[in-house]
């Protein structure tokens, strides 16, 4: 009876007889564009310098396959002019094993694909350490969902931006700025209804630039649950920092960034 009453009231107030179903909506198709996923990472304490860049193309929305780009030339050039060539292995992944980016230094990405030259420039961003992880069970709609809080101490008196990637079955990107938390011990937050004890969550904390933060801010608003309905922002074309120097109209998607990463694994209790 209790449950019934609860369900009744929730039904009434929050969901008001709403229902979700999959519908068949035909869509227009736009021309294929290059998609650049160039995340150059340095994992704290790691000796491994293997870097990879993924190049793909956009596909029709309902397609199940994403076409990889396999015949591009990819390189990264340091401030001193050292060139790091990325070699295609398979499925659009390009590998270099020598690039160990220096904090605060700027790098240029250059891609030649279909006779067009794409470039992007970014600075290697540092990140503070993960202090500790706390688990609580007061999250979500029910107030009983498992929450994982990854604490870190924000460096004081400078603007910092963070990207957290949580991976268990699903992948979740969380981004933070320190506008209201400057210099404090604060946390990255992960909670969803599917977390259960015993789950292993891979956690990565990236230091990112302001412009990458802004890029991810727009990107996040376009994906999954965050779109549609009267209280959502307008969908937008998410433009990254890779520029087609040959033909501006044929702009690519994706982003080139360099981040220091602190990483850990957490087993849900």
């Amino acid at each position, binding site marked *: 009876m209790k449950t019934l009453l609860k369900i009744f*009231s929730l039904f*009434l107030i929050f969901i008001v007889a709403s229902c979700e179903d999959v519908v068949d909506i035909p869509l227009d198709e736009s021309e294929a564009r290059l998609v650049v996923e160039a995340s150059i990472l340095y994992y704290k304490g790691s000796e491994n310098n293997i870097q990879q860049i993924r190049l793909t193309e956009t596909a029709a929305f309902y397609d199940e396959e994403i076409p990889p780009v396999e015949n591009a030339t990819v390189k990264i050039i340091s401030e001193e002019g050292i060139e790091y060539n990325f070699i295609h292995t398979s499925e659009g992944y390009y590998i270099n094993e020598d690039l160990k980016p220096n904090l605060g230094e700027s790098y240029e990405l250059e891609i030649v694909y279909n006779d067009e030259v794409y470039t992007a420039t970014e600075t290697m961003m540092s990140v503070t350490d993960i202090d500790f992880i706390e688990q609580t069970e007061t999250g979500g709609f029910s107030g009983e969902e498992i929450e994982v809080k990854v604490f870190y101490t924000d460096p004081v008196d400078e603007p910092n931006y963070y990207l957290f990637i949580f991976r268990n079955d699903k992948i979740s990107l969380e981004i933070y700025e320190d506008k209201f938390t400057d210099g404090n011990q604060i946390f990255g937050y992960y909670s969803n209804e599917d977390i259960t004890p015993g789950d292993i969550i891979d956690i990565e904390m990236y230091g990112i630039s302001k412009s990458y933060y802004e890029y991810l801010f727009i990107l996040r608003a*376009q994906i999954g649950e965050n779109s549609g*309905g009267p209280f959502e922002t307008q969908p937008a074309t998410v433009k990254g920092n890779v520029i087609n120097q040959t033909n501006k109209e044929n702009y690519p998607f994706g982003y080139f960034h360099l981040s220091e990463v602190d990483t850990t694994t957490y087993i849900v209790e």
Partner: protein
Amino acid sequence: MKQNFRLFILACCFAFTSFAQENYTLSGTITDASSNETLIGVNVLIPSLNTGVVTNEYGFYSLKVPEGTYDLVISYLGFQTISENIRISSETSLNFKLNKSSEFLDEIVINQSSDGLNIQKPQMSLNKLSINTIKKMPVVFGEVDVIKSLLLLPGVSNAGEGSSGFNVRGGAVDQNLILLDEATIYNSSHLFGFFSVFNPDAIKDLKLYKGGIPAKYGGRVSSVLDIYQRDGNSREFKMQGGIGVISSRLLAEGPIVKDKGSFLIGGRSSYAHLFLKFTDNENSAYFYDLNTKLSYRLDDKNKLLFSGYFGRDVFSLSRNFKNTYGNTVLNLRWNHIFSTNIFSNLSVIYSDYYYGLTLGFVGFNWDSGIKNINLKYDFDHYLNDTFQLKYGLQNTYYDFNPGEIEPIDETSGINYFKLKNKYAVETAVYLSAEHNISNKISAEYGLRYSGFYRLGPDEISTYENDTPVVYNEDRDIYEEAEAIGTQTYESDEIISSFGNFEPRFSIAYSFNDNQSVKASYNRMAQYLHLISNTSSPTPLDVWTPSGPFIDPQILDQYAFGYFRNFKEGTYSLEAETFYKKIRNRIDYVNGANLIANNNIERVILNGKSRAYGLEILFRKNEGRFTGWLAYTLSRAEQKTPGRTPVETGINSGGWYKSNYDKTHDISITASYEVSKKWELNANFNFQTGLPSTFPTAQYNYKNITVPVYSQRNSNRLPAYHRLDLSANYNPNISSEKDFKSSWSFGIYNIYNRKNAYSLTFKENSDTGVNEAVRLSLFGIIPSVTYNFSF
């Protein structure tokens, strides 16, 4: 500017003197005999002189007539017409009390003479609904809703079920001036938008001006919804109330001093959250509001009115999330009759909108709001039978709190942060004339001058080239500029000032008693902006004043209409076309973060909007079967071009459809009186689907599927339609007993149409396949409401 202002005042004085004439004045107040409630819009006619007037918002009328003996006819919807022979040989004051027509308690008979006046009066683009009509319409959950009922009239729409506010003739939600007893209401929605804040039992009269807006009103560019609360019964104590699925109501009214003073107090609250309490559930969502009114007639010439409104919405999800918001309004008015032909009302109004949010898991409280104090002095001046003036002045002081963040406790990682309060003063003077130029032509023309002063203390960032938003040509995105300095303003120092002349003009040409054409033009200025980049505003959105980087919105609207009564007013037809354009409509760059942003100027661009359309309203006003057919064909668009040729602006700088644009909007509302006790009602609604943006491609980034969107709002949701039915049962309508009760049974969306509230394009997290997911809000919903009065 000062020079212009002086000229304007001079013109006012000239107008008063030049039309003075020797005639006797007949004036007075018209009230409901059963409650002494003043009646708005009562027709007072002298057929032999072919002259007449309607009572104003306070029940007052005044007519200039030459000496003689006349038949005076006083008529009002749902009341018995009074016809009296009077002799005028001096200044005469006559108050009348009207008795409810016993035969038709439901006000279904519209008196023909009232429509006759509508034909001849210059006012057009006016939506009027009596509160009785509103009360019997079928509505979702049986919750009588003023705004949802207005949506059934032409020219009024919203951004879908459950969206907040309403849109008038392609205008945005924040462009509606909503007045409750002359006080501004900043947010008209309960539960985000499922219900509106007005308690129907407390309302006496409402009018929605869509165009041809009189000079008396200003400060918003799209429409004026002018609602008056009842004064309360000064003859006897009365109670009424109702029990519904979502909320219950109770209202008490009665005399303080018999026939002189009255009170009214009404409350309404939702109560589903009480059930949640029984279940130890910490989640909660409820709203309540309280309407109060005190009125006291000092003597024949003076009356004091005090009214108040307080409403709150509260949501909480366990300890993690708590959200409170609502309006508070206090208002003291003094009606004074200077002479038999000059009526005045002085109002002192305080109104505030509060929004509070607690996010437990992040550890902060957030407060924001707007407060204002408003002084208004309005005059109705009845010069002669063909000329009536309205003039007045207004002064409003605003205090904006854009936001304050505080940590909940010491363990919170949040720092205290306060966005600077903003201050402003808005002033206006207006003069407006209603002029019957000839038997066939009447006009209403006026001028309003509005001024707006943004005041210190404040600190305003300065930017290179005065450009707070920088266009990054390489990436084709807009970025926030860095401030190059700060300019500090002392308390009450003027930061920026604006002034606008707002001419208003309407004219009617009557072919005969039953047919007329009308045309109108109005310019209006709006100095406040609701900062919102969601499809429909949320309660969290903050109001911001015009200032160094934000210009006032300026509207020009043209409307033309044809009006006709058939069969002595049994049927009526109104057809109007309109065109309007608004300058300085703010638009937001992609990714604009508007919450707790001290520098909104860095994420906005200056755009414009336009709307045009055709509205048709065909009504059957008399008989057992009444109702209307409303059709609107319209387009509402917005455009924000780049500031230089290389810039692309928003949406490539082209026109794009507003979020609430609907090409076709048809509603049919019908009511049939089966017997004295039973009445059946129906409405049917068909609307073109709302604009939406569908993806044209997808890509993968960090193992996440990202849809690619192209032109904004270039697609549409599927068409929206539904049919609602209701039956009202009045078992003891003819009984002599004081206690009366009624039942209302309703079914919303009877054929259970799954109307799309939104379409979401996303990856199915189980299958990994992309799909379009339709969310539909209200399926078939039965409801029952019990009402009583004694």
